[in-house]
């Protein structure tokens, strides 16, 4: 056969004709803001002194999240589509009902109109910020933030609280902190949100610093939720001693009676640091009866650290509390498939897809770089070649972290007894980074992990794979 090849230049994989054929369309037209003055109220906006009246008040998450998982959400197709230039020119405020557009989910249009000068009231900004929070899109969030700054509502406490929440959910703690620091009024829940956000982003130390600053102000009465957030920050930092100090502080200085949430917080602090024996002793010394959540937490940490004996013991104790977990007494039920059914070979038509579209800014990237650097120093080197976006290395590492096969393995580890072989089916070919990561996992957890991808089987055991890294 005669060989054929592209006739493009040495630096391009495409031929010139291909480049010409698929040239990108012209970029979106830019619209300049029309505000003459930053605080001039628009015709449709209510007076600032009436802000908050007849509207729902900001109510951030009351309990902090415990894990460090990025808050990926289901994306909408709107944000993923290429922006089309609007055909509108200058629009009179009387001709547009922004709130109606918000209710119809046309947030991009709303942003465009506000950018052109159409005035947005409290409700509109509230809706936009809520949209950005759900979207977890930093770029869109920053755009809305800029619009808010230029509007008469820039100092509104409720909206700024929403803004903080949006930045926390988008993973930009630096931006969240900037807004937070400028706020003259800060409710207790907002402090909790910040502390928990730092913990979830892996920066527990900053969370603890913020807590100490909060204590010095002495303007707010701390409660149990405060210390739940604080303990999560300690766990994130691996600060065992500090965790116990704050635990005692909660009881002695603030008179807060520890609840199960706090005991779980201490277990997290100990478990994440690998102090399993101490965690077990702590549980045994608890003044209240350990719940099944407590033992489940012990089981999880035992699995992570490969303490099979502790895992077995905790499993036995858990079964006493939750007899439904004793599968030996149950007849084998016919198979059940969670989530929607799908044809494995036609999954592209049916699988629900939850992919992140987080666009980190430089500050977030720097933070992630730092975290990645720490892991590199310890010997972990993710292979970011498998992330096909021209983005920062740290973001690539983040993108690699939560591939589906790793999630499946994580679930298998927390759902099956010790020593159980895990079998995972992947519809595509396992990527190289996951292949290497799973080898490490098999060594850490002391189990055989069998992955069937669309090419072959991989038997991971004791840090090695049956394919000998040749596939």
């Amino acid at each position: 056969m005669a060989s054929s090849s592209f006739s493009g230049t040495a630096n391009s994989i495409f031929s010139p004709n291909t480049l010409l054929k698929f040239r990108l369309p012209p970029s979106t037209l830019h619209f300049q803001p029309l505000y003459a003055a930053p605080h001039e109220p628009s015709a449709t906006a209510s007076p600032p002194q009436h802000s908050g009246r007849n509207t729902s008040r900001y109510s951030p998450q009351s309990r902090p999240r415990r894990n460090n998982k990025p808050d990926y959400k289901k994306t909408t197709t709107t944000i993923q589509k290429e922006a089309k230039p609007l055909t509108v020119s200058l629009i009179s405020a009387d001709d547009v009902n922004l709130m109606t557009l918000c209710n119809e989910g046309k947030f991009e249009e709303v942003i465009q109109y506000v950018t052109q000068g159409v005035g947005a009231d409290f409700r509109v900004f509230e809706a936009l910020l809520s949209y950005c929070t759900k979207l977890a899109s930093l770029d869109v969030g920053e755009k809305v933030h800029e619009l808010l700054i230029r509007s008469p509502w820039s100092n509104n406490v409720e909206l700024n609280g929403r803004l903080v929440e949006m930045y926390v959910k988008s993973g930009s703690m630096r931006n969240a902190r900037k807004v937070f620091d400028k706020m003259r009024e800060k409710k207790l829940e907002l402090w909790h949100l910040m502390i928990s956000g730092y913990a979830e982003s892996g920066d527990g130390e900053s969370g603890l610093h913020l807590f100490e600053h909060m204590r010095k102000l002495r303007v707010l009465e701390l409660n149990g939720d405060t210390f739940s957030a604080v303990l999560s920050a300690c766990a994130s930092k691996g600060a065992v001693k500090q965790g116990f100090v704050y635990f005692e502080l909660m009881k002695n200085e603030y008179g807060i009676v520890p609840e199960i949430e706090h005991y779980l917080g201490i277990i997290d602090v100990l478990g994440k640091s690998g102090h399993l024996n101490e965690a077990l002793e702590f549980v045994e010394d608890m003044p209240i009866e350990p719940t099944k959540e407590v033992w489940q937490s012990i089981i999880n940490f035992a699995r992570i650290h490969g303490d099979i004996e502790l895992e077995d013991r905790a499993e036995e104790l858990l079964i006493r509390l939750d007899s439904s977990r004793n599968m030996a007494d149950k007849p084998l039920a016919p198979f059940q498939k969670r989530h929607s059914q799908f044809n494995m070979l036609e999954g592209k038509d049916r699988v629900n897809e939850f992919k992140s579209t987080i666009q980190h800014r430089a500050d977030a990237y720097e933070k992630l770089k730092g975290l990645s650097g720490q892991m590199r120093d310890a010997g972990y080197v993710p292979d970011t070649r498998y992330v096909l976006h021209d983005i920062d290395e740290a973001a690539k590492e983040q993108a690699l972290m939560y591939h589906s096969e790793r999630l499946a393995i994580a679930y298998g580890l927390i759902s099956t007894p010790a020593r159980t072989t895990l079998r995972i089916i992947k519809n595509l070919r396992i990527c190289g980074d996951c292949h290497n990561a799973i080898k490490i996992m098999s060594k850490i957890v002391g189990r055989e992990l069998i992955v069937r991808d669309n090419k072959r089987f991989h038997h991971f055991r004791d840090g090695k794979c049956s394919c000998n890294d040749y596939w």
Partner: protein
Amino acid sequence: MVRESVEMDKRSYVFVLKGCSVLEGVGGSVHCRIWKVGFFNDLIVRNGLIHFYGESGKVVDAQKVFDESPVRDVVTWTSLIDGYVKRNMVDEALGLFELMCSNGVEFNDVTMITVFSACSLKGDLSLGKSVHELVEKRGVKCSLNLMNAVLDMYVKCGCLPMAKEIFDKMEIKDVFSWTSMIHGYAKNGEVDMAKKCFSDMLERNIVSWTAMIACYSQNNRPWEALELFHEMEKQGLVPIESTLVSVLSACAQSGSLDFARRIHDYYIKQKRVKYSVILANALIDMYGKCGSMDVARDLFHEMPERDLVSWNSVIVGCASHGLAEKALNLFEQMKCTGFKPDSITFVGVLSACAHGGLVNQGWEYFRSMELNGLLAEVIHYACMVDLLSRSGHLKEAYNLIKQMPMEPDKAVWGALLNGCRMHGNVELAKVAAEKLIELDPQDSGIYVLLASLCADERKWADVRMVRTLMRAKGVKKNPGYSLMEVDGNFYEFVVADDSHPQSRAIYRMLDEIMLLSKLEEYVSDAQPADEFS
């Protein structure tokens, strides 16, 4: 009767012969007695003997009785034709039918049922149509059984439109009619139509349930096959061998190991269904594809009898599990036991070499195909290209492609592209990618591999261009997902999935594991993937 000295007439012997069909070693003595009492020349008795020998598979004896018959009627001819059909001697059966017609013997609907069966076995649509026309022309009585035979013929000859036409015209339909249509739709990939037929059936039997389960299984819808099987069990029906074969295949596709074990334990080990070579082969295939190759090999070694499918299943299974040496050893054992390898055998052997990086052995086996009377097919060339490409012999792989006697397909070029990706050969990758896009512009894997290559070379503009190309062609990336079976329940995950109720715990587990990776030497020397997420 004989002991009681009761006098038997010729009809008695006809009934006795019918009973002898299910008893081995008795018919011969009955034949002798027929001869002794002088009934051998009676037409009814002769027809009974021909039918008996035909049912017993002794067509030579049946032919002999036929030849010695001075008088033959339609039953005589039909019985012998049926005997040949049952032995799958289709040409002899059809030849006999032709002789029957040329002798001026008028055939009936029973005869034509047998002839249509022969056409079905032969898979000759043209012949089937001719026979159908003959039936219509001669005005043969269109009984339900005859119409079912016509229907079955069109289905098995791959002419679904004609089958549907016949089916729609049938005023009376029975379970066999509906089941034939299910088979037809299944064969044609029209699962929903088959499902509708199954739903519309007023009466179903184990064959129809099996047909529908097989339909799902054969059309890559294993979950529905398993659900239907469960429904069948709830109806109180007991599966037959072919039911279990389809169910085990569905388990293999879906990775339903727990459920498959239940099938194995309950139906096979407890001998509710007879254990056969066919079932054993299905089990070997299932255990291999569900990740329990050790069990599959044990089953293979325990088989008292094996066929070529058994050997192929275990060889291919070992190959896919990276047990290259074991696969090749089995291949050598197979040859020593007298089995002649077929095309599938060599797919397994070459795959084993590819997974094991055994270049020289791969070439040796590839060349030995001709010695075994086999011509290498495109899939074998794909295996060789894969072997050479993985091991870095890219030029050699490309030369092999250029020398191929047939047109290279996606598998061939895909293997080369993947090898180029592994070894960073940009120029050759362009060639392969271009060919692949020509063959299947909608395959997202090609673009992902191409983008990976660009990313490796830090050509981000080209990466973006690949994505632009995908959008322009309307290509959608195949989303990745993973399945995990826990206690018989399956859980599906996609990248960054947080839909599971225990997502927080799952992510916490992941975070802890990755942090612990600090304690290990985790320096990536990873190999590339063609598609991942």
